[in-house]
């Protein structure tokens, strides 16, 4: 028997209107955005505040801040002069030495990991490179100044004696400084320290070489090395350039290890065995005893260093990204 009861209209589920949590959602997403923006804020603040602090020195010295090689914070008479050319020179020279030595080694390691290493060895080799990155730079500096530099003096002396008759070479490899703390030693330590990052990026780049191109090279009767030069390098060139630039940025910014082994002398000379100084190193060496304008000048150095490393890092990241896009497009 079907008795008809009054049909109740089924309640329609509300699909509109705010249920609990919308405000929480918005709050949360804004909060995470804020923390992300913190990165941009800090970078901007660094630039603004340090530049402001250093402004009096910039105003006073003008362009001579970077073009003059006279750095005299406490002159016997008159106003202090802050010309940082010697330090810029030292930064550039030690970084170049680091690249010359460190990049071939890094690319070699990356090639080893992607082409030569048997699978079982690969993990341990990667771990070794990671361990190199884990050693704090101050420990490298300590070892550099107390262990490496004294040993290197003998090697420098030997090299100097060997090339003494050769013009040109004997100015680059001139008389070594007694302590061994020199551009060359700093460059060597920096080379060790940039190996992890250059190796890591190079490895990523090399491993994206399409197997099809490798097969094609082998099918033409190429040896392993010929395959690498024919298929892997052309594909990876852009990315490797980016890796090198990142290594350069790291070398330029390295502070502590360099300051312990570069010598601490305000010096512009082609002799790589002589002592010198770098921008980051001079800041850390002289900051403690500085006051007033001197401090402002050191901060100004920091501004210049900041600007240089940001530009190089940015350019490097863009180069790597563009190389990635280009080879992806080519592979399709």
């Amino acid at each position, binding site marked *: 028997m079907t008795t008809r009861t009054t049909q109740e209209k089924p309640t329609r589920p509300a699909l509109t209107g705010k249920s609990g949590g919308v405000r929480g959602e918005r709050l949360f997403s804004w909060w995470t955005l804020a923390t992300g923006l913190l990165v941009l804020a800090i970078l901007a603040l660094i630039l603004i505040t340090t530049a402001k602090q250093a402004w009096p020195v910039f105003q006073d010295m003008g362009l001579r801040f970077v073009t003059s090689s006279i750095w005299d914070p406490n002159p016997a008479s008159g106003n202090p002069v802050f010309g940082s050319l010697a330090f810029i020179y030292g930064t550039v020279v030690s970084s170049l030495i680091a690249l010359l030595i460190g990049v071939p080694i890094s690319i070699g390691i990356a090639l080893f990991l992607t082409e030569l290493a048997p699978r079982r060895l690969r993990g341990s080799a990667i771990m070794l490179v990671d361990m190199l990155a884990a050693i704090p730079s101050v420990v490298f500096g300590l070892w550099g100044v107390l262990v490496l530099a004294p040993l290197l003096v003998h090697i420098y002396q030997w090299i100097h004696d060997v090339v003494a008759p050769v013009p040109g070479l004997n100015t680059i490899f001139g008389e070594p400084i007694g302590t061994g703390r020199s551009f060359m030693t700093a460059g060597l330590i920096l080379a060790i320290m940039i190996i992890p990052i250059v190796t890591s990026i190079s490895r990523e780049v090399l491993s994206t070489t399409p197997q099809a191109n490798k*097969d094609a090279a082998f099918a033409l*009767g190429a040896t392993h090395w010929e395959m690498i030069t*024919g298929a892997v390098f052309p594909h990876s060139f852009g990315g490797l350039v980016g890796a090198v630039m990142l290594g350069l940025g790291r070398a330029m910014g390295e502070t502590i290890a360099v300051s312990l082994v570069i010598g601490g002398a305000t010096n512009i000379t082609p002799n790589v065995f002589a002592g010198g100084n770098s921008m980051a190193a001079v800041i850390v060496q002289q900051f403690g005893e500085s006051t007033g304008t001197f401090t402002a000048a050191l901060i100004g150095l920091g501004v210049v260093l900041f600007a240089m490393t940001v530009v190089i890092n940015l350019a490097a990241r863009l180069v790597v990204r563009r190389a990635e896009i280009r080879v992806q497009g080519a592979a399709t």
Partner: protein
Amino acid sequence: MPDPFTRGAPADGSRETQAPAAAQAVPEVHFAPPATALRAQDNERRKESVPPVMELRDVSVSYGDFKAVRDTNLPIDHNRITAMIGPSGCGKSTILRALNRMNDLIPGARVSGTVTYHGQDIYAAGVDPIQVRRHIGMVFQKPNPFPKSIYDNIAYGLRINGIKGKLDDQVEQALTGAALWDEVKDKLKTSAFALSGGQQQRLCIARAIAVQPEVILMDEPCSALDPISTAKIEDLMRELAKIYTIVIVTHNMQQAARVSHSTAFFTAEVDDRQVRYGRLIEFDETDRIFTNPSDERTEAYVTGRFG
């Protein structure tokens, strides 16, 4: 300029120059004469029994413990196109790669049986795979030019193999041989990626013939191309067979019927442990495979009942 399609210089020192048919500027799709007619011409030549350039005897290829292809017996005859057909996953490409030791690049791959080239077992101890690949070249399924210019793609193989002769001439010869010269002669230094798919594949063929191999292996060379490019490359194959020996793996039965002289049919079998593997079922002159095959599985495949 020597024409790559003449077999050596005529004795009187004069040079014949004839533009190879496939290098005509106007691309046209033309249909080859029926397979049977071609065969008749070739069967004449075969009366003098020439030993096969390559021969597989009881060849099996394993990956680790898994025997993927078993007991293959196959002759590869000189100046002929041998096609390998059959459904996917039956070992055709595996056997092809065994012919130039490309399987060596896959860890765990092992080849048993003998693969001979002019009587020498190419897997014998003391044989250098690099030398093997110099004489037995390969063209792959997807065109894979190097990220270099057209010129450098061809020059690469020439440079590493130290081939004598002026580089420019060699490059031109190779491109002419691949029916690509007229289309690219003005842009040799531009990137290979600027070419169309069909042109890139012809570039890969040019790259392979530049190092003067004797045998050219082709692994489904047209499967990534449009019909017009496919037709051009099939024409090219016929011309190339006059000089080289060609082995082609193809999924396209009609293609095998059009271009090849001999055809090998592979299919899958299941052994007593329920493991599926590939096996060569039948090998014969192409027209016989397609008109009167001996094995019923071959017949089922070529008549389209499966596969």
